[in-house]
């Protein structure tokens, strides 16, 4: 019983130490480590919030096997920038529950944040945001991708999304005839 109690105390101490840390360490699929503000991670990602609350955060780096280092770097960058962009009063009152308000236009910094990404990096980031349950980041990245579709022909859209055309020539011709107004060149 003595031993158990000791173990319990050690566990308690470790937990306190962990709780005291204001960052968490995340590990990408290719083994790279990234530090992110615990508060921002918990506020912006439902998945990370759940892991923090459930104590399944690993001090040596929590494995995120589905996310590559470039995407994870962008996620962490976004969390840290987001933490800085919000007034401290809002930070104090904010909870880890998600903001489910209707879509708000991306802010200037969010627009710049996604604009600088390469095509592949943007697609990797939208998947990472989806995986981590980051509603706002998903909103911003999906908005950016939908903007990329504007003014593009179906062929160009297929190229952007790496999708194979599964319509027959006859079917496509039929659509083009029916919906000619939607297809004339910009």
């Amino acid at each position, binding site marked *: 019983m003595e031993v158990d109690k000791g173990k319990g105390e050690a566990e308690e101490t470790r937990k306190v130490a962990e709780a005291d840390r204001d960052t968490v360490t995340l590990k990408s699929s290719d083994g790279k480590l990234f530090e992110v503000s615990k508060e921002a991670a918990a506020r912006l990602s439902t998945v990370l919030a759940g892991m923090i609350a459930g104590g399944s955060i690993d001090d040596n780096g929590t494995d995120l096997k589905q996310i590559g280092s470039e995407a994870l770097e962008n996620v962490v960058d976004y969390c840290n920038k987001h933490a800085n962009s919000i007034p401290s009063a809002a930070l104090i009152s904010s909870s880890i529950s998600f903001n489910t308000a*209707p*879509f708000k236009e991306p802010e200037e910094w969010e627009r710049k944040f996604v604009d600088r990404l390469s*095509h*592949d990096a943007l*697609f*990797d980031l*939208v*998947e990472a945001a*989806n995986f981590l349950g980051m509603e706002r980041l*998903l909103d911003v990245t*999906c*908005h950016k*991708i*939908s903007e990329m*579709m*504007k003014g*593009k*022909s*179906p062929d160009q*859209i*297929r*190229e*952007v*999304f*790496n*999708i*194979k*055309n*599964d*319509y027959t020539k006859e*079917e*496509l011709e*039929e*659509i*083009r005839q*029916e*919906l*000619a*107004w*939607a*297809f004339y060149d910009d």
Partner: protein
Amino acid sequence: MARPPLDRDQKQPPPEDGNTSSAPHLCEDIVRAILLRLPADEPEHLFRAASVCKPWLSILCDSGFRRSYHRFHGVPPVLGFLTTEPRRNLTRFVPSSRFTPGTVTHEDVDPIDARHGRVLLHTYLSDIREDALIAWDPIADRQWECDHLACDRDSFLVAFVGSDGTEAVTSATLYSSATSSWSEFSSTNSFAHLSLKPATLVNQMIFYTTRRSLGKIVCYDYRAPSLRIIDPPDKVRLLSFRDFILLPEDGGRLVLVTLHLTSLDIWVLEIGIRSRMTAWTHRSNVDIRCSALSIEPGHSGTFPVGSCEEHGRIYFNRDSHDGFLSIHFKSGRVSVVTSKGEFLHVIPFTAFYMPTTPQLAGTYALEIPVCANVS
């Protein structure tokens, strides 16, 4: 319709020559989230997306997606207006977005109503017969001569109201698809030359306005059935050149809006069960904010030419062939829709958030509202 998966686990075969993108295949949830954000007032994007691949088409045609799209973007935007040209038997589509239908003008027809992405036209010189109702889908630019006999899987009703000048009688009858038959005529012994404004449906009563010279309201209670003709409020008859617009309102109310001096005058009629009606009550006057616009309120040349209940807007023509205005009837905000042309009658055409590629997505049922009005 089954949704073909676009999941990473079921990756499509590697792209063939010419497709060099290494972008990942996004899972269906993400594709859905992206398509949801395509702008509602530029409907061409949804249609182009539908022609990218069949899995995308099934996402877009899915009723769940359409509901989400509606929630995300709110009330569908007005894509254009159906107008009749004075002194010419011509119906014209005046675009207010990029969307332009393949057929812009229809000869020898009057537009009756536009709902759910379909327009109901009345043609009086059809090749097929003298009088016909035509349903037109402006987006796919397809039209059907509509006998309403194969319109919908569900049952539907078609009301027909007409007035005979020589006999001085106005009559109405109702077609029910459930019984495949027309009801007995309900008639009233007076002539009511109906206007071209779309009918208004409140608590199973259909209200039609008459031409300006008469300034009356024809009410058809198709359940009773009964037909009667009522007056607008006295003040409206005296002061507003008998020009008014009817709009339905939740809670079984018929709203009447008219232009008086520099304000919109709003009146309400409660329609109770068994078509019991209260007297008109005056609700409010809304000042029109139009200092910069040369609208001459109350002038006989400025009168309401149409309305859009979803957007709470009323359209007024302008004098001297200067186009028409849109007035938000709760706030009084005014905007110019077009500043050229003479308009006596406009019907807004709103997007229905539904890609109609009928050949590919399966045949959609034709959804035309129950009120037809032929005078």
